[in-house]
């Protein structure tokens, strides 16, 4: 069973969100998602400074097996992207919740976080999907 840290929020499309102290959020894909995708070879993150909208495709991760859209878990402005992934996309496989983060967002409406699942609800969602 893949892990899902308790302090994160989750989407049905297998992204995770971490609320940082400065009010920004960090976004990545879950351990379960990277396991399904297999070895990643490219990550196309949104550009820093661009605006993303919750629920819409904003990035692509491509594995040996398939390409997969990443959906914005929250609306806001992208403030940073994980530059390390350009050369080392395998970090997403090795460390999906830490070194393999995808991008950071300054939320336009932090209230949207409340609509996301907690770790237990996400675990149940993964269970129901398999």
């Amino acid at each position, binding site marked *: 069973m893949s892990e899902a840290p308790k302090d994160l929020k989750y989407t049905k499309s297998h992204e995770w969100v971490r609320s940082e102290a400065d009010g920004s959020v960090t976004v990545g894909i879950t351990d379960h998602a990277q396991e399904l995708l*297999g070895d990643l*070879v*490219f990550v196309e993150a949104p550009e820093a400074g661009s605006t993303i909208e919750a629920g819409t495709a904003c990035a692509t991760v*491509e594995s*040996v*097996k398939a*390409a997969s859209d990443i959906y914005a878990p929250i609306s806001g402005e992208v403030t940073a992207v994980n530059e390390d992934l350009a050369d080392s996309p*395998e970090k997403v*496989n090795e460390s999906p919740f830490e070194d393999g983060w995808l991008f950071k967002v300054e939320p336009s409406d932090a209230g949207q976080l409340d609509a996301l699942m907690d770790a237990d609800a996400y675990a149940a969602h993964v269970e129901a999907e398999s």
Partner: protein
Amino acid sequence: MTTLKTTPLHAAHQRAGAKLVDFAGWEMPLHYGSQMEEHKRVRESAGMFDVSHMQVVDIHGPQAQALLRYLLANDVAKLKTEGRALYSCMLNEAGGVIDDLIVYWTGGDTYRAVVNAATAEGDIAHMQAVAKDFDVNVEPRPEFALIAIQGPQAVEKTLPLLPADLRNAGDLKPFSAVWNDKWFVARTGYTGEDGFEVMLPAEEADGLWEQLKDAGVHPIGLGARDTLRLEAGMNLYGTDMDDQTNPLTANLGWTIALKDAERDFIGRAPIEQSKAEGVKERMVGLVLDGRGVLRGGTRIETEAGDGVVTSGSFAPSLGVSVAFARIPAGVEAEQLHADIRGRKLPVRVVKPVFVRNGEPQIDLPKN
């Protein structure tokens, strides 16, 4: 849900923590953790594949050669040395590819073929139906397990584990085999690397697998098998060609032996006709230097109309995506464009062989 067939190595895959998937009705390992690492191990050291789902078929009897010269598009009369192997397509009356296979001449009036898992049942039925007019037996040998050991260190790691009377396998030329009454060892493979394919009694398969593992040969799943064969420029049946495909449009012209005008074989007439008229499509290799992955079905734009990727993937040994694509025959451009999720990305047209014996066969972009 139908029950999947399992090979004699199924327990070994479970012990190794394999991700098991349905492949042509068989429960087979997709990977044992990382497809990418498995791919690299085969290019750099040695890996082993359970290919027991492929089917061994023995053909023997006074007219074995006559049957195979009629059944196969390549000519088994080319096999002059006992143990030599030939790659061939088996065509239907329309010239479409029923399957591709390897056939060994095992001396006298005996041959051994190895056919694909997905097509095995149909292949055997077809072979047996055609064989009715010949004095010959077509005998499936499902009791064998098949293990392919591939990579630059495959031969040295495998040799000490072979039965003593088969250790001369180290002297085998590519596409040749030696055997005793139980084991059959061929210097063949599907990766572009040196190595063996070993047929052995099912009950001995687990033992050899474990000994190979102890010798440092890692198990490799079907995922890496696919990227390895793609890099090596080898077609996959059902993906790059099927019973609707003219082999001349699938880079298989070299396997069709038309030299002996006296030899009739199934599919000869339509192939000769399309050769005379000229085929409308040809298969090329593609390299995508940019970020993105060519995949089966990706549309390729040319000045003479669209082509399509038949097999495509990220190539772990090259760090870029490569593919086979069928494009309009007259197109000579060195650069085409691939439509990847709405983006038009430039792709280079190359000979469809990307890696051999660990060495890139194409120019790679400078970093």
